[in-house]
């Protein structure tokens, strides 16, 4: 397996604060890769840098060996990069189905002329798009919501819609920013199954998440950030035992206690 995403020496400062400092890690193709760390550790900033929403002060980002560091946001979608947002950003006025279809923008090929004259090629593409979008909605369980305005969905549904929209571009790498936030355990479990299926479709996932049970169960590999720096990296089993990580989360006492009895909610 090769590295699909390669991040080297990434740094970002906001005014006086160093949000990300010399972060280096790789995401292997076919993996579900977790990015964890306490609040304010710089995880979302790393996402913003990878997706291009923010320009880095320093460092390199490469997708499939090709540097995307200086590409504008919209150009990265064409390289197979998609993402969701921590504070859900759907197109509220558009329907659920249209949101998914918009997600496919970068891979559609219809030209202005084809759209204007509704050529057979355009029709075929739109028909395929519609089918694929409905199928994606099926996958995230929103098929029966297809014609509602996205703004009318519940919180959990909106999260799932964002994932469907992210998948619509048939990305190679999907960045998920706290996909389980605000979900109850039942929903979280369903989400885990969904993401498993997504990986099985051949999509590599990089996710930021706070629900540790979720992360530990789902991820193949984990990178831990604290104070904008990488403090640990490895498979879940290792990370769970890594004293540096434990200290970052619980402090030394909690870590000691954790060593005795493990259980989950």
């Amino acid at each position: 397996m090769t590295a699909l995403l390669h991040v080297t020496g990434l740094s970002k400062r906001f005014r006086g604060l160093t949000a990300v400092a010399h972060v280096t890690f790789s995401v292997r193709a076919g993996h579900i890769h977790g990015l964890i760390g306490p609040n304010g550790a710089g995880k979302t900033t790393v996402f913003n840098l990878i997706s291009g929403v923010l320009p880095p002060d320093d460092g390199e980002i490469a997708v499939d060996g090709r540097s995307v560091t200086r590409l504008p946001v919209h150009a990265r979608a064409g390289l197979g990069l998609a993402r969701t947002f921590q504070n859900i950003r759907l197109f509220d006025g558009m329907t659920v189905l249209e949101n998914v279809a918009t997600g496919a923008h970068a891979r559609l090929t219809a030209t202005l002329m084809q759209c204007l004259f509704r050529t057979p090629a355009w029709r075929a593409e739109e028909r395929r798009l519609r089918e694929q979008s409905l199928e994606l909605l099926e996958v995230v369980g929103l098929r029966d919501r297809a014609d509602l305005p996205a703004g009318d969905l519940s919180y959990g549904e909106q999260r799932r819609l964002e994932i469907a929209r992210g998948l619509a571009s048939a990305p190679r790498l999907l960045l998920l920013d706290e996909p389980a936030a605000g979900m109850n355990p039942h929903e979280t479990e369903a989400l885990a199954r969904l993401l498993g299926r997504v990986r099985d479709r051949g999509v590599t996932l990089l996710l930021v998440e706070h629900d540790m049970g979720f992360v530990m169960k789902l991820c193949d590999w984990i990178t831990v950030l604290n104070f904008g720096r990488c403090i640990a990296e490895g498979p879940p089993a290792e990370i769970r035992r890594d004293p540096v990580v434990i200290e970052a989360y619980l402090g030394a006492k909690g870590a000691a206690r954790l060593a005795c009895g493990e259980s989950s909610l």
Partner: protein
Amino acid sequence: MPWLDDILWTYQTLIHSLGINGLLALSMYVVLAAGQLSLGQAAFMGLGAYTGALLSLHTGLPFALVLAASALAPAVVAAVIGIPTLRLTGVYLAIATIGLGEVLRVVYVNAGITGGALGLNGIPGRTETWMIFLALGLALAGAFAVGQSRIGRAMEAMRSDGIAAAVMGIDRAAGQLAALLVSAMLAGLAGCFSAHSASFIGPNDYAFETAVTILSFAILGGTGSPLGPVVGALVLTALPEVLRPLQDFRLVFNGLIIVLVVLFLPRGVVPWRMPRLGRLPRGMAP
């Protein structure tokens, strides 16, 4: 049927205005649909009018070419204004386009060829009613076709959330610039038609009030679909002619409409929203 001819003759200007204002409203829609506000539609219209009138007065170009040139000239100017301002927030384009209206007025007033403050008169009446409505029909059909394609979805996405749209691979600045260019072309076309319909144009015909009137077409109609602005234009163009007493209050009325509609009827009188994904294969409903 002479009485019909008479009615058509009597209302010819009104009928032309209905179509021309429909085109202008559509030009406003194209910008608004992409999430920007231009107050330069009147200026683009004026540029089209002057370009068309000068070509007709001084060259023997066929009308089709004159129309094409009148659409292109404002598009070039729109690019000069749009490229720096579309990188910034919406207010910059609004300000720059208001300024454009003023500066073009200064140009018309000072350039010898434009007849200065006296304007241009004796412009041949080359506009036929069918041309206007053919253009309006085509523009409307085009707006629908494009609006229901990936381009239309991209426009609404960039209006709704610029960052999310960018992440979907949508180039916001380029999309909004394209919308502005198309809009300028439509307005230029409308200007060319109006110049060849009224036979006389002057530098003060394309001022701020005209821009606001065009905006009021779009706002009244609503921007959920291209139909809204056109209906708005038809209503606001016919109304003063129908309700003569309203004439005195024309500008007051336009201003009032914008204020009331934005505050109380944000989706306009045609609240219908155009679907962005064709409902082609109905068969596979769940």
